[in-house]
């Protein structure tokens, strides 16, 4: 076992534009989309026919036939077919968690290069058989004689035709993620105006990023889509203010405008050691320095479902002897504008920081001009597992563009989870065995 770790460079990223559910990618499968994202990256980084250490990726909503989704995508891509691959899942944290896993292997010297990513479709959703019907069909399949087969068939009922459709709800509370977030918004006193301002800024920033060509080498057009379908360049607080609340009841502050829509898309990021980078003629955009995951007890302790990043970040900061203000860019995944605002309020709150984080003083305020500077999920949309790759690649490029600095990534996930990471322009040995 290698006792020393080595820097992990972020070399390039690629994604397909994100489409709204049942929009441009209504007929595309997860495999189609992730293969397209991979091939775009292969082309951009000159990886054709190359064997990489691995491809780590996942999808939140997945058909049972896609048990080996990522490997199938590699086999369908221009990468060497000798590149191993595996699927992972951590809800909306999947994409970033894949990057953490791939980066850790590079840091430990177990591999030199890897692609991390994710894909999701809500259009081609995996509708499952009714559980009763499934049991009968299994019985039928296991039957050894005609009598047994007839017995199984005799159990069929018309009601069993109703399928199991995946729901965007927490199994343990029965509440949708939006309803959970509405509770958080109420708990933290988040106003409608704050949320709409954040949403408008997201659209404004993403549109500006497209306009100045920032997205050109982060994206490959797909199925006629060149920009994210959800992006509304002309979005304003005034227009957003007209939308009706969709979560939190009559008094709710959350609308379709300040919540992410269901969407389809895929993303991929190329990670490598410095040696591999040099040998293959690449230049690092930035380095993947550290990561932390956290989970909250939203069932028993009633902590907000999407508050886990608020716990993960201070743990990671303490380990790195950094303050919340020691960052030049912040990428906080905008699952809902309210999630971002609750997180920021929690970090500013002496009560939360003392009682729940055990800190002597609050983490404090961040400079909002450094937050999601090239747009966030509210504008780009959020195909669950694809968001991590979008953010890692975008942040690495933004740090490269400004010629230095440090960025923070914070992604909330279903099940009360949070995945966070630090990306830095300058090479830093990732934390690991030296801890």
């Amino acid at each position, binding site marked *: 076992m290698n006792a020393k770790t080595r820097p992990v460079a972020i070399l390039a990223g690629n994604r397909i534009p994100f489409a709204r559910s049942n929009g441009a990618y209504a007929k595309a499968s997860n495999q189609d989309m992730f293969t397209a994202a991979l091939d775009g990256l292969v082309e951009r980084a000159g990886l054709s026919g190359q064997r990489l250490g691995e491809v780590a990726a996942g999808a939140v909503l997945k058909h049972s036939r896609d048990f080996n989704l990522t490997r199938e995508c590699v086999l369908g891509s221009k990468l060497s077919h000798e590149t191993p691959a595996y699927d992972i899942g951590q809800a909306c944290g999947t994409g970033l968690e894949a990057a953490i896993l791939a980066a850790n292997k590079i840091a430990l010297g177990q591999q030199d290069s890897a692609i991390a990513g994710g894909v999701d479709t809500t259009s081609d959703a995996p509708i499952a058989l009714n559980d009763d019907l499934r049991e009968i069909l299994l019985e039928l399949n296991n039957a050894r004689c005609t009598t047994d087969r007839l017995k199984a068939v005799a159990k069929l009922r018309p009601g069993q035709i109703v399928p199991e459709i995946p729901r965007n709800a927490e199994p343990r509370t029965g509440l949708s993620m939006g309803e959970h977030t509405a509770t958080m918004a109420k708990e933290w006193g988040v106003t409608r105006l704050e949320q709409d301002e954040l949403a408008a800024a997201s659209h404004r920033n993403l549109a500006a990023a497209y306009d100045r060509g920032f997205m050109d080498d982060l994206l490959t057009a797909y199925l006629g889509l060149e920009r994210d379908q959800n992006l509304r360049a002309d979005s304003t607080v005034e227009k957003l203010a007209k939308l009706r609340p969709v979560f939190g009841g009559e008094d709710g502050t959350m609308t379709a405008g300040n919540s992410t829509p269901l969407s389809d898309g895929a993303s991929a990021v190329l990670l490598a050691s410095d040696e591999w980078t040099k040998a293959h003629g690449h230049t690092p955009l930035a380095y993947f320095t550290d990561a932390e995951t956290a989970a909250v007890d939203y069932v028993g302790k009633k902590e907000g479902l999407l508050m886990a990043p608020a716990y993960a970040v201070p743990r990671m900061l303490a380990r790195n002897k950094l303050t919340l203000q020691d960052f030049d860019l912040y990428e906080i995944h905008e699952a809902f504008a309210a999630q971002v605002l609750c997180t920021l309020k929690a970090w500013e709150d002496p*009560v939360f920081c*003392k009682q729940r984080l055990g800190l002597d003083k609050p983490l404090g305020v961040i400079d909002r001009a450094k937050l999601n500077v090239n747009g966030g999920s509210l504008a780009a949309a959020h195909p669950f597992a694809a968001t991590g790759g979008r953010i890692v690649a975008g942040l690495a490029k933004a740090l490269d563009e400004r010629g230095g600095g440090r960025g923070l990534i914070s992604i909330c996930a279903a099940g009360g989870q949070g995945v966070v990471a630090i990306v830095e322009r300058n090479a830093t040995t990732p934390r690991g065995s030296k801890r």
Partner: protein
Amino acid sequence: MSDLYSQVVNSRIGGLVASNVGLPQPVELDRFVEGAPVIRGEVLLGAAPGGRLSAPLAGVLVSIGAAVRTELEGDVRAAVGETGIDASVWNPDAAGDQHFKALVFDASGIGDSTQLRQLWEFFGPTIRRVETSGRVVVLGTAPEDCPTPRAATAQRALEGFVRSVGKEVRRGACAQLVYVAPGAEEQLESTLRFLLSPRSAYVSGQVVRIGPSERRPEIDWERPLGGKVALVTGASRGIGAEVARVLARDGAHVVGLDIRPLEPDLDRLMGEIGGSSIAVDITTVEAPKLIADHHAAEHGGVDIVVHNAGVTKDKTLGRMDEERWQVLMEINLSSEERINDELVERNLLRADGRVICVSSISGIAGNAGQTNYATSKAGVIGMVQSMAPVFAERQATINAVAPGFIETAMTAAMPIATREAGRRMNSLNQGGLPLDVGEAIAWFASPRSAGVNGNVVRVCGQSLIGA
């Protein structure tokens, strides 16, 4: 004691009629329930900048296990964070359907009349969010303790604010002002517990002054009077009987006192609550000695003395005979002075001793036909105020309750017009219960009420009569 009107307007049809024709709509008030939390609902805590009471307030709220909300920014939030309350956030701009059981505001930072605006800012968005039987408590510095005339002016202004809030809040909610002297911050708890809890159901529009004291014994808040001996005069019936019950409930051994003809009733009650009886006519010359001897012999002293015994002998002044004047004065005032003196002289009132008198709204506002009664009850106030420094020296206190319209056999016998006027002419639109008087007395009696001395607190639902 049945209040038929309340029953009618609290029925569906009755309520509809009452609200449409603008009749008063009394609600059933929350009252003490054994084992229930001090306050059932959320407390919103706020403060004017520069106040000195946020930390002690937060400390009390931790102690009572209240669910607390504060605004995200400001000194209060930091103070709350320090004390260990995992408080939620209140943002008036994202109010939603948030309601509060209590609004507590530290106004001690208000040093100038221009800063009274802080009241408007805090209560404006919140006052209509107070739940049924809710509480509003404003805390400040008594004008006499203020460093500058401007500060004293602004702090005096709080009285008008709180009294008006008491009249504006509906559905059984009460509003109080608590002046906390500098150095008395640690004496807040018993008073805040009382004012936030259902124990203060019928107390509204009152001003309480808390002064410094070295006494702060650790007590069991479930049985604050545990181990105490409490003498209650006139304990066989009415308010006195209920006072005895409440003190016994809170852990005291009650020595019930009444005249010999009422002894059977007295004995029955004392049997019920585990107390003991003495039959003494307090107006007799030997009464103080008899009472003192009894306590010295049986209990080695006394901790709590409740001067509850009292009579009315109404007549306009020109028609009043000597007996009406003189007997009443003896019972209602002079005997109390003599008993106090005897207990003090013989050193029988122990440390943390509490003397609690019963005054009356008549003693504050005056009443036609009650020159004798009002004189005696105003005298009780005088006694409380003049004796407070004397008792303070002995680490004891003296205070008075001044009941308004309390539902007793006496008020039930009133003519209906007088009775209904008495019941409705207050902010809560109903009469109080003897229990409510007992609760206020138990608050004064608490060993942790050491800072509460020389106060006269009305138990009147903020009656329109009197200050």
